């Protein structure tokens, strides 16, 4: 593969800017049946919490026009089990593993981060934006002040760089990004899912036990692209953007809006080969346009 897609996110070198998104890729194993994960720029772990979490009860998935609502509720084995059973496998893959960390309160975030200090991770994605867990998560991500607070505390104790994952459901996303940058975040990722609701009219009931759930997929792309642009215009730290990306053209638009890397979420379910097709598409684009590196079109709009 040529070097036209090589991308530096601060001093982390990604062989290409394409990274499957947290929660849509498990810990990668399932997709090994489709392609060699080393082809990816990186991959992002399922959201991890200090303690194992069983996730939400009841219906967890609901399809919407060009979108998907989910209420997984951060089901995960917990940091310890992750380090023991998943990390050795992930570490061995020749790609960047981003570790996504959620929490229910300050203490659980900080303890989780401390535990991760023990492993040689390259980048942590601090999830302060999961709309599907009542205590914590999105609560931090709705306002600039609380987002900055938790970011600062996490940055202070983490030996790994922290990229904060923002919610599209709170106050002005550019303000929140700015607060995280000021608090020492080394990167921003966005967007997490948009809070939505589903009603089963036949049952005269809400679909999700948790009342609301998170919307993702192609439907949200225009919103995600706008927010990416707003944040890229505002902060100097690099941005990893996502939200509805389904092909290389979408990915390119996010890069043109200023994103350094892009993440691929829901479309993995629709087309497991999507990340690879996007990498190939971007590479062909560089060749056709005579770009030495994709970075030449970054932020050009």
């Amino acid at each position, binding site marked *: 593969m040529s070097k036209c897609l090589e991308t530096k996110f601060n001093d982390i070198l990604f062989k290409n800017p394409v990274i499957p998104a947290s929660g*849509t890729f498990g810990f990668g194993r399932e997709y090994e049946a489709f392609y060699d994960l080393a082809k990816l720029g990186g991959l992002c772990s399922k959201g991890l919490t200090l303690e194992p979490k069983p*996730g939400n009860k009841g219906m*967890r998935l609901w*399809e919407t026009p060009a979108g998907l609502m989910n209420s997984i509720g951060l089901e995960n084995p917990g940091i310890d089990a992750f380090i023991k059973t998943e990390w050795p496998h992930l570490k061995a893959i020749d790609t960047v593993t981003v570790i996504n960390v959620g929490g229910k309160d300050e203490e659980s975030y900080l303890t989780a981060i401390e535990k991760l200090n023990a492993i040689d991770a390259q980048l942590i994605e601090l999830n302060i934006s999961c709309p599907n867990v009542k205590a914590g998560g999105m609560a931090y991500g709705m306002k600039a002040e609380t987002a900055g607070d938790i970011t600062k505390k996490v940055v202070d104790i983490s030996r790994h760089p922290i990229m904060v994952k923002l919610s599209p459901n709170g106050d002005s996303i550019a303000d929140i990004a700015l607060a995280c940058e000021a608090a020492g975040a080394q990167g921003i990722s966005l967007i997490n899912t948009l809070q939505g609701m589903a009603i089963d009219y036949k049952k005269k009931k809400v679909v999700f036990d948790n009342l609301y759930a998170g919307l993702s*997929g192609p439907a949200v792309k225009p919103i995600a692209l706008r927010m990416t642009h707003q944040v890229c215009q505002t902060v100097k730290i690099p941005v990893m953007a996502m939200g509805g990306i389904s092909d290389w053209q979408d990915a390119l638009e996010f890069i043109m809006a200023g994103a350094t890397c892009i993440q691929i979420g*829901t479309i993995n379910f*629709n087309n497991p080969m999507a990340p690879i097709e996007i990498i190939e598409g971007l590479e062909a684009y560089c060749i056709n346009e005579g770009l030495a590196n994709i970075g030449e079109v970054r932020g050009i709009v």
Partner: protein
Amino acid sequence: MAVILTNTSVSPGIFKMTVEFTGDVKPGQFFMLRAWDKDPLLSRPISVHDYTPGKLTFLYQVVGKGTEILARLQTGDDVTIQGPYGNGFPKITEDLCVVGGGIGTAPLYYLVRNYKAENPTGKCRVYLGFRDTPYGVEAFEALADEVVLDVGGIITHKLSVTPDETVVTCGPEIMMESVAKTVSAENTVYVSLEAHMACGIGACLGCTCETKSGNKKVCKDGPVFLREEVFYV
């Protein structure tokens, strides 16, 4: 991508599709099907109804947008199939009693055919329940030692299981639960569950069902479970 060999209505709202496919396919496994781009967004899980190398058959009910699109496909059209996924039914060597309800009978045909091929002397009884028009009954009659049909009633009212039968059930949850509760604890009972699915391969955690041993993924750990795991009988 698979090429469609036939796709025809076999009963009101029920279609049978045969596509070209070669590979290892176990009874009880399913494929994720799609023949559209982003509307709907997700692929649809459909069980294997029958399989011989080169010919994979699905039996499906038209209930919404996805199955409506599938039903409009014609011989020669392409359909995207991913799979086979799921654990499938375990190897059964005892006598077999299958209890199917409605479209839940779909995966049971390949199970019975395969059982008979593997256990030429094994006995296989089949209970089939339908709300209105039954379908596929003769196919079972051609294979099984006995077929009990019920239309409009409650199939479990007719059900009686012998001690040396393994029971397999697939159909509406209420029916499977009733089978699970009716059949003696001495018998082995397998149920085949459904859940909304996004990935079909264990990556999204969307199809979780609670079991005695914690959360399981219907798509990967299932869809076939031991009754004890999922129904607290």
